[in-house]
């Protein structure tokens, strides 16, 4: 412990701070739950120190063989349109984020979650849990096989329906890069009335949450495919990084 008494000059990577419009404002009253849950005080500035520029590099030991294939986790096949969802995870400078844990969860084809508090009258599918995990490969690529989730009603406003979506959770390389988001499907007619998607104010940023139909990635006579690329925060250029370009 004698070697670490001072950190002066410790060369830490610096992650670029997000633009104001990059993420939804926490207080977005169109999404009613934010009214009692979004903090009212402005966020304080947290310098990026050792705890923030490091983070859990987990996953290898946590994955089962079929965790990436939500259609093969039971004896029978789930109902619904089988789809492949794949993409690349990169940082804001285009660098792949390799070997990072990607967790997803979703409703079944009828729009019902396998959760005790989801009680709307759509059927549970005994062959579908709606949860998947995988690690990105060395190029930052990931791939899931699942079924197209259904839309479902909620009580946010009169006759409110969530567009079909898949929840995504990513760790990245550092605590600063942690991201939880949702992937939507192109052309969904329910977008116009959804306050969660529209909490992202910048239309360009909103578009980044919508997957692209990817015919080239379909599996003939088996599954359609969607591509959803994910971008985590990039780093500031620092002298430290010059020697750290690990290709």
């Amino acid at each position, binding site marked *: *412990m004698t070697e*670490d*008494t*001072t*950190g*002066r000059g410790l060369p830490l*990577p610096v992650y670029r701070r997000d633009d104001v419009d*990059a*993420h*939804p404002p926490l207080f977005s009253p169109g999404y009613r*739950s*934010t009214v*009692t*849950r*979004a*903090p*009212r*005080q402005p*966020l*304080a*500035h*947290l310098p990026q*120190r*050792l*705890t923030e*520029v*490091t983070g*859990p590099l987990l996953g290898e030991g946590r994955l089962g063989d079929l965790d990436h294939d939500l259609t093969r986790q039971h004896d029978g096949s789930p109902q619904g349109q089988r789809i492949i969802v794949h993409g690349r995870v990169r*940082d*804001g*400078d*285009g660098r792949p984020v390799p070997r990072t844990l990607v*967790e997803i*969860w979703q409703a079944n084809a009828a729009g019902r*979650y*396998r*959760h005790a*508090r989801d009680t709307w009258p759509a059927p549970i599918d005994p062959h579908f*849990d*709606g*949860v998947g995990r995988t690690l990105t490969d060395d190029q930052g690529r990931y791939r899931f096989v699942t079924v197209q989730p259904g839309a479902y009603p909620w009580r946010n406003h009169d006759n409110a329906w969530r567009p079909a979506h898949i*929840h995504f*959770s990513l760790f990245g390389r*550092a*605590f*600063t890069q*942690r991201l*939880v*988001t*949702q992937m939507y499907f192109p052309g969904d007619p329910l977008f116009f009335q959804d306050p969660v*998607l529209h*909490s*992202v104010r910048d239309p360009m*940023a*909103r578009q*980044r949450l919508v997957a692209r139909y990817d015919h080239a990635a379909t599996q003939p006579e088996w599954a359609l495919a969607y591509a959803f690329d994910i*971008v985590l*925060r*990039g780093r500031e*250029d620092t002298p430290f990084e010059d020697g750290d370009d690990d290709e």
Partner: protein
Amino acid sequence: MSDRLGVTPAQTVGPYLSIGLHWPDGPYVVPEGTPGAFWIRGRIVDGTGEPVVDALVESWQADPDGRFDHPDDPRGARPPRLAGFRGFGRSETDDQGCYRLLTVRPGPLPDPDGGTEAPHLTLSVLGRGLLHRLVTRLYLPDEPAANAVDPVLNSVEAERRGTLLASAAPDGFRFDIHLQGDRETVFFAV
């Protein structure tokens, strides 16, 4: 850097986060029975004082020696000497809005400005109604000397600093998280 990419925006985990984010071993930053281990427990409450039953707390911290097993620690990645130390914890809130994490005291950390950071955990709070994760820090009440010179604590206005301090509890510490209200926890942009 003309070819910067726009980051993917955050979205809420929604009410059914436990489907995707539940880990049976989530709350165990260290295995049960680890010498020196203690529980951090707390409740998350919203602006009306109601417990938040559909949230998740994640923690990240240094090991007891103040080291990280991570390539971006410029002192070098070092596997923890404490067997089973993961550094990371994850706990959904229960039907009382309570989370729990079993961990050990992190070591102090050198600060690039030449100071020393007091032992702390960095926390993410995710939940229904939270469109982006909330970030806060947890400090320990029995480290008054270290806390007094911690640069992050000192950057927070004095009257709100206490929201970042856990309190002593029978089996460890208690750290409630107030999303709004008179005792609103200090949350950070990182």
